[in-house]
């Protein structure tokens, strides 16, 4: 028997389901008056270390909360626990063999344990990964990348999606500059090639360089009129 093929137009975005959840998250954040940062980087670039400085600097000034994303362990959440801010750890391990990124659904699951109404800023520390997190909206207001100078000058050209999606790049581990053959101007040129004029702050979680500037940036982004 001749089998006829039927064509059906679909026109459905692959990430529509995720984006709808991200939008729902976003509405919840807005209702609670919480400004949300999605912080991304390669593993080991210094997100958690910079957050330790951030929480210290903002103590008594801004009510922060943290949503930690990791494939496994609560190590990062444990490091930040001493700052006594609202904090939840999401492990992506129960996902597809350990999802390499946070998606909107995972973030939503973490929100149940966060008192959003008491938080002015939520920082989502994403899974260390230069590729996948950039593809998945989670409902954030802004995306901040942490880049460590030990990664070399060429990463922006190799991972354009991540660098293009950032609103700010924290160029970290500046204390190591004298020990490396890192060409800062070349790196910044590559960064501008994929995301012209994107904000950048030179930082060091070891010395505290740039932390004040980063905190000021965050305060201004959250409340531009003040």
């Amino acid at each position: 028997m001749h089998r006829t093929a039927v064509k059906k137009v679909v026109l459905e975005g692959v990430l529509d389901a995720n984006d709808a959840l991200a939008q729902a998250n976003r509405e919840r954040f807005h209702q609670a008056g919480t400004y949300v940062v999605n912080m991304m980087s390669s593993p080991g670039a210094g997100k958690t270390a910079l957050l330790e400085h951030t929480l210290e600097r903002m103590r008594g000034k801004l009510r922060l909360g943290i949503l930690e994303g990791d494939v496994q362990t609560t190590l990062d959440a444990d490091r930040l626990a001493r700052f006594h801010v609202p904090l939840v750890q999401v492990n992506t391990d129960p996902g597809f063999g350990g999802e390499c990124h946070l998606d909107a659904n995972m973030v939503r699951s973490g929100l149940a344990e966060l008192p959003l109404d008491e938080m002015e800023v939520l920082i989502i520390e994403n899974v260390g990964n230069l590729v996948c997190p950039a593809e998945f909206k989670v409902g954030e207001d802004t995306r901040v990348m942490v880049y460590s100078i030990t990664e070399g000058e060429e990463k922006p050209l190799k991972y354009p999606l991540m660098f293009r999606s950032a609103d700010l790049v924290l160029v970290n581990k500046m204390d190591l500059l004298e020990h490396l053959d890192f060409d800062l101007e070349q790196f910044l040129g590559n960064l501008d090639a994929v995301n012209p004029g994107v904000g950048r702050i030179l930082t060091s979680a070891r010395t505290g360089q740039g932390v004040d500037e980063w905190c000021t940036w965050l305060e201004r982004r959250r409340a531009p009129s003040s």
Partner: protein
Amino acid sequence: MHELAIAESVVRIADRHADGRQVTKVYLKVGHLRQIVPSALAFSFELVAQGTSVEGAELALEEVPVTGKCRACGTESRLESFPLQCGTCGGFDLEIVAGEELYVESLEMEEHPTKDQELTG
């Protein structure tokens, strides 16, 4: 790799739209600015489709090149690599009008629901 998460979503969308019919082909539009590796996606797709109405379907990937509209002079240029630069005036302030797509465009499937195929054998 996130191609697996993408493939899972594609299969779910196709399965839902097929509504019980066997899918033979899925047309997917992928913009060049998305970080999708075609071979990894095809591999993941085949894996994830098993046991669904999408099993055995061909994944037809249409890659969409990047087009940018220059905010300075208004020209649309095809963009092949970074830095994204206007082909006419050389400006860097471009609005991306194509190249960020990631959607299931259409499906081909058999006309009748799967259980009919068992009867006609």
